[in-house]
């Protein structure tokens, strides 16, 4: 349907910025307006891109965590193995809605974070940096995917 949600939100933000902003003299109100415009622009992008990004990321992190699980097998880090297995279990279920997709994303990120936090133990147990290299590469891809959600929208005056 046209105009799309993104087009409507962007046009609202632009109108507020161009037509309302110059007339607002009170600095507190002007600040709120700047924040509102920034958030509207973010929501306009996020509404369109988030479902695809989450799906793409879920496939990516599943593949990475599978590879990590294989390398952790028998390495003597049962808690980390369990965390990875749990996250993979969550990621294997097709999320029913946006909230479930976000929950799945969180579960996977918790596992990735635990693995990175335990860097020294993982290195010692696996005898190398293969796992952290896999994770680091994944995080780089994730950041690149997410970048358009936050940049340049949040580079402007935030308040």
């Amino acid at each position, binding site marked *: 349907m046209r105009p799309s949600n993104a087009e409507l939100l962007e046009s609202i933000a632009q109108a507020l910025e161009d037509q309302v902003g110059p007339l607002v003299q009170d600095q507190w109100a002007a600040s*709120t307006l700047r*924040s509102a415009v920034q958030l509207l622009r973010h929501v306009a992008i996020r509404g369109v891109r988030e479902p695809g990004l989450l799906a793409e990321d879920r496939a990516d992190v599943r593949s990475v965590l599978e590879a990590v699980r294989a390398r952790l097998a028998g390495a003597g880090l049962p808690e980390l193995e369990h965390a990875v297995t749990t996250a993979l279990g969550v990621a294997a279920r097709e999320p029913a809605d946006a909230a479930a997709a976000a929950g799945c994303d969180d579960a996977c990120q918790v596992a990735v974070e635990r693995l990175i936090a335990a860097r020294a133990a993982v290195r010692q147990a696996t005898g190398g940096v293969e796992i952290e290299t896999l994770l*680091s590469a994944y995080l780089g891809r994730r950041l690149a995917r997410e970048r358009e959600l*936050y*940049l340049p929208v949040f580079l402007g005056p935030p*308040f």
Partner: protein
Amino acid sequence: MDPQRLEQYLAEKLGEPLRVTGLSQAFPGLSRETWLVRVARGSAGAPLDAGYVVRADSPGGPFPPVPLEFEYQVYVHVARTPVPVARALWYDAAPALTDGRPLFVREMVEGSTLLPGLGDDTEAAAARRKRVALEHAEKLALLHRLDWRQYGFGAFMDVPASVEEAPRRELLHWWRVWEQVRTAPFPVVTEALHWFADHLPRRAANLSLCKGQNGIGEEIWRDDRIVALCDWELAHIGDPCQDLALSQGMLKLWDRDRLIAHYERAAGFALPAENMSYYIVWNAFKSMLALNNGLHGFLSGRYRRLARATLGYGKVKVYEQLLGAIVGLDVHRAAEVIMSGQPSPYHHRRVAGG
């Protein structure tokens, strides 16, 4: 803030009748509220004009996860030293005036946190920038060479065992805090924290009382002189390089190398370039931590001020991108990445009074 309730509160605390003649909130007050109050004290026949500053936690709590009482204690202790600061009068843990939010009151120092015209493209403005930058460097040096043990700061601040231990102690402290306050898993930041551990400075330049926030917008200026250093919530004992690295553009006001040399002469110790670069990156992490902590009030519904979302979520994601970019770099290159991409939250801050 209701002027009548404030009037009653101040009269009770000061023990004499008074009338509030002026009340304004310093903008933007995102972390904590700062109320500038003018009162006429004493009898109606011969009132005495006085100014006070009421600093209170916002309904959403502060950005830095540091209790307001800590900052009050810093003010009290700094007032005993040669470092210029407003005199703190009292701390109130849960006053009805702010619906139970803690506050403290200090005397108002006349001046401004802003220096209008400082960025003008004129010879006079350029000369002024140099003057202001040197003044700031001298005041920081005064603070950093202070014998903080003599003035009792060690009684309520965490004290590193040595200059060698200070950088690691700072890292581990804020790493723990981050794990307590972050609003979501941030594996990129955990990776960055390992980078910090791998690139720790060998030793602090000195064990100094550091201010935390400093620079334009943080101090009270009068006639291009700092008459009071303000905003002490992130004060700590540590590497003074951190203060120079977080000086809100002060090092850009004049020739950076000559400015640092001026500071070093005044302080009596050198600032290693590696430490400066490290703390430029480190300050990005600490800023991100504080901003993300400020998102809790928004997420819980206690404080839905929109800037809490733009800063605590949006800006935090920008910082996450920046910290993700430093992994694999040396400290100097990482500092360049941070400086090239770090947006200043103080773009057009309007803060008046003390």
